[in-house]
């Protein structure tokens, strides 16, 4: 009896230990930093592209989608007898590159330090103002019906957007993508390889008399919150960029985050495939609307 009991106990212990080892191994594999591929030099903000970027519509696609939305919303407003109609939106501006890792380009910081580059000034546009009633029907913020006609959920704008989503498979919600994006960014920043590059940057900066914990402390220095950049700001920013280049900080950061994002996408391959298909369906829907509208 005792012997049987002992054997059972030994067996249970072995099984439990094996289970533990399996769990530990799985956790270690999941937590292990991903292998980094090619470390490409980053000379300009345009060199920064990440795996998640391809799951966002391009500016040209967004322009098509926004214009199709306006066409559908106009048709809907017309059905309500409204004379006001949302105008065609202007083109979504082309990307000038990513500011994800902060300063990159010497020429830029020599002019403006940590201040963001000047945007082209907005041009006044003379467009007809909607009446409050038209705006209510357009946005759906108000009564649920007017003149006996039911206002769609979210107004004509909501209806237009739903029409463009027809056939788009349910997949990762925007909040989850934002969470994932930020989390990969943070994980990459905490990764030992980036931390080492950041330590090298810190030393490089300190050697020139600038003592910051990391690049964000330099970027967010409240002394830079002035109308125009001071000489101190410009000098700091120039040293910052020099140190980034000398330590290959941004090159390393981009390579490491690329690896984290690739792994995240692989782990959710089916969802990202659906996201990819959905983008094409949405764009096709919009193209058809513009062709017939």
């Amino acid at each position, binding site marked *: 009896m005792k012997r049987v009991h002992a054997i059972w106990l030994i067996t249970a212990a072995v099984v439990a230990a094996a289970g533990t080892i399996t769990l530990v191994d799985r956790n270690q594999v999941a937590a292990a930093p991903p292998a980094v591929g090619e470390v490409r030099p980053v000379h300009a*903000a345009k060199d920064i592209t990440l795996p998640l*970027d391809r799951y*966002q*519509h391009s500016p040209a696609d*967004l322009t098509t989608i*926004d214009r199709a939305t306006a066409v559908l919303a106009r048709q809907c407003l017309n059905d309500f007898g409204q004379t006001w109609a*949302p105008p065609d*939106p*202007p083109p*979504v*501006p*082309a*990307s*000038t*590159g*990513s*500011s*994800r*890792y*902060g*300063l990159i380009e010497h020429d830029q910081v020599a002019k403006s330090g*940590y*201040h*963001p580059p000047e*945007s082209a000034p*907005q*041009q*006044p*546009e*003379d*467009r007809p*103002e909607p009446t409050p009633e038209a*705006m209510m029907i357009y*946005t759906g*913020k108000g009564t649920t019906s007017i003149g006996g006609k039911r206002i769609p959920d979210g107004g004509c*704008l909501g209806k237009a957007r739903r029409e463009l989503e027809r056939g788009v498979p349910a997949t990762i919600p*925007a*909040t989850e*993508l*934002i*969470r994932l*994006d*930020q*989390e990969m*960014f*943070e*994980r990459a920043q*905490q990764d030992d390889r980036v931390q080492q590059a950041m330590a090298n940057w810190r030393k490089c900066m300190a050697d020139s008399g600038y003592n910051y914990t990391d690049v*964000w402390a330099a*970027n*967010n220095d*409240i002394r*830079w*919150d002035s109308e125009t950049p001071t000489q101190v700001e410009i000098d700091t920013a120039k040293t910052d960029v020099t140190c980034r280049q000398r330590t290959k900080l941004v090159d390393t950061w981009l390579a490491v985050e690329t690896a984290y994002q690739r792994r995240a996408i692989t782990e959710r391959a089916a969802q990202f495939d659906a996201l990819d298909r959905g983008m094409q369906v949405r764009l096709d829907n919009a193209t058809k609307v513009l062709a017939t509208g």
Partner: protein
Amino acid sequence: MRKIASVLAAVGVAGVSLVAAEGAANAACRADYACMYSASNYTGLKREDFSSRTNWGQITYNGSSVALYRGDGSQLNVSSMQNRDPNSYIAVYYNSGHRGACFRIRPNGNVPNFQTIRLSIGGDANDRMNSHKFNPTNCTGTIYG
């Protein structure tokens, strides 16, 4: 393009509409503006802004001395946001100067609660939001709203 002429009269010296803090969040967010709120579902303190801003730590909710960003985890950091510009995306960045990780809010789009975006490494998505920009060209982040 945003219609500047019609807005100038409503804009204060600092480019911020001077709506009283009390009940401000209940007032509708006006066309062409970005509205940032300290609580979810467009409640709490409100900032109505026609312009891009480079540092939320340096600007305050309308009629108050409370900054939009008061450090990680502050309850009064921006928790919901509306983009009432019909023609412009707005990018929101996790650092000042329109830098760092970012996401976008589409024209006439709304984000009812940033705090629902919980990070597995700790904190909420609204912990570090620190600047915003109309018509962004340096953010390819997820589009919300």
